[in-house]
């Protein structure tokens, strides 16, 4: 399904900023918030792994029903290493990348694993 990707802050994520070395960090950030109707359309249920892809990459995250809906065709991923696999580095020469309003695709990927950030960084940057 074609969607618009928004990234940003959440209170859950803010609460684990000092605990990035814990699983709480993955739980709070490796997620994708859906509009409930979009979940039905995609046959995705809470907790399923989904693949989000854009011109700049793809990432596997957990589907979460948005508590701040409706927002049809808009998915939300908290700012962080997972979101930034798919955000756009386009800054229009003003310093700011495109963190919001990125055209993206999302589909169910039940059997795929959501990586922790060390796994994710290792995979992306070989370090």
């Amino acid at each position, binding site marked *: 399904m074609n969607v618009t990707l928004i990234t940003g802050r959440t209170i859950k994520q803010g609460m684990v900023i000092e605990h990035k070395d814990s699983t709480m960090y993955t739980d709070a950030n490796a997620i994708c918030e859906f509009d409930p109707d979009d979940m039905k359309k995609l046959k995705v249920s809470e907790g399923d792994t989904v693949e989000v892809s854009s011109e700049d990459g793809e990432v596997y995250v957990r589907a979460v029903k948005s508590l*701040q809906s409706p927002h049809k065709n*808009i998915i939300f991923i908290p700012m*962080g*290493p997972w979101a930034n696999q798919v955000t756009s580095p386009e*800054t229009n020469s003003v310093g*700011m990348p*495109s*963190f919001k309003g990125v055209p993206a695709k999302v589909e169910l990927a039940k059997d795929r694993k959501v990586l922790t950030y060390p796994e994710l*960084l290792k995979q992306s940057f070989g370090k």
Partner: protein
Amino acid sequence: MEIHTDVICPFCGTLCDDIEVHVENGRVMEALNACKLGNAKFMSMNKKHRHLVPRIRKDEGFTKTTIEDAVARAAQMLVDAKRPLLYGWATTVCEAQSVGIELAEEVGGVIDSCASVCHGPSVLAIQDVGFPSVTLGEVKNRADLDIYWGSNPMHAHPRHMSRYSRYPRGYFRERGQLDRTVVVLDVRKTDTAGIADKFLQVTPGDDYELVNAFRTLLHGGEIPDEVAGISKKDITETLEIMKSCQFGVLFFGVGLTMSPGKHRNIDNAISLVAELNKHTKFNLIPMRGHYNVTGFSEVLTWQSGFPFGVDYTRGYPQYNPGETTSVELLCRGEVDAIFVVGSDPAANFPKKAVAHLAKIPSVAIEPHETPTTYLCDLNIPSAIAGIEVEGTAYRMDNVPLRARKIMEPPAGLYSDREILEMILEKVREIKNGV
């Protein structure tokens, strides 16, 4: 048990200064008045695992080293670099930022803060059209209209509404909430929108069009039946609310600075606010994120003339966000070393920028483990500013406060400022061939 009152919360730009922290033999027992975010930060002081000595990358992992060795390596990296990037600065105090700026100047590098990926566009807009603003106490005492646009304080600044805007009683607003109207504009029906008197759900990326419609209508022009997903009726009503209030304030967030149009969304919104002053009193305030991102821009501006993205490679400050800011410098490969203080670019920059960060020599000065410390070659843990170290921080409305020290850092940990001073001294030694 020690009780610390009037503690400044070193989390977000709201910079609450009424926290009461109870400390018992080195443990934080509670942080009264703090929101979930602030509370989490104070409670994290009880975290078991914390690195107490610097670590260098070795093979697959890291190995411990001394502070002296770490300082020498960091200094050498900065001296060797043709254009080092010194990035971060938003979660430390001004006293450390000031040394960081001197260090950037000394090594001929670029110094930039997370403003460039947060409210940097707001600054660019201010530099084009200005900035009619007020302090938050003015909002508390006078405002009868609070607009939040592209900002979700319930998540990012949880006490903002209770301290300054929606709820408090003020000199001219004795009935508090009853005297105030709240309007929220966002692309999602956020939790903040949930408690608004009026909510406008904007089509993603069309904020600029909507501001343009407000301004056109304000000057008696015609607008179509719908703009940015909002009906002409709602746009007209909302504009009426703005014109007819006694004192309005627009709080805007990264929902505007990060969406298509970026600084131009703010530019246009600032002009709208300025023009509303022909009808009533209207101002705006950016919802700055980290607790001292504003302080960095203040210190860098009075010292260099420019607020972020300052390039010292030629010995004098050069400023051109889009050229001298971190994401472009990394994506274009125009920096050959990176020095991060109190920030997490590896988590918060797009993949392409992080890829270059991972390639070049790198140092992170940071209390906790983060994606950035994971990728950096050298990690120097530091004391936690605003809790273990006192110093100056500037609120989102530029009000300066002195963050308090409420506990001692673990033995062997230095403050950001001390570490930076050691590195600066070492850099000068190396340059003078000592």
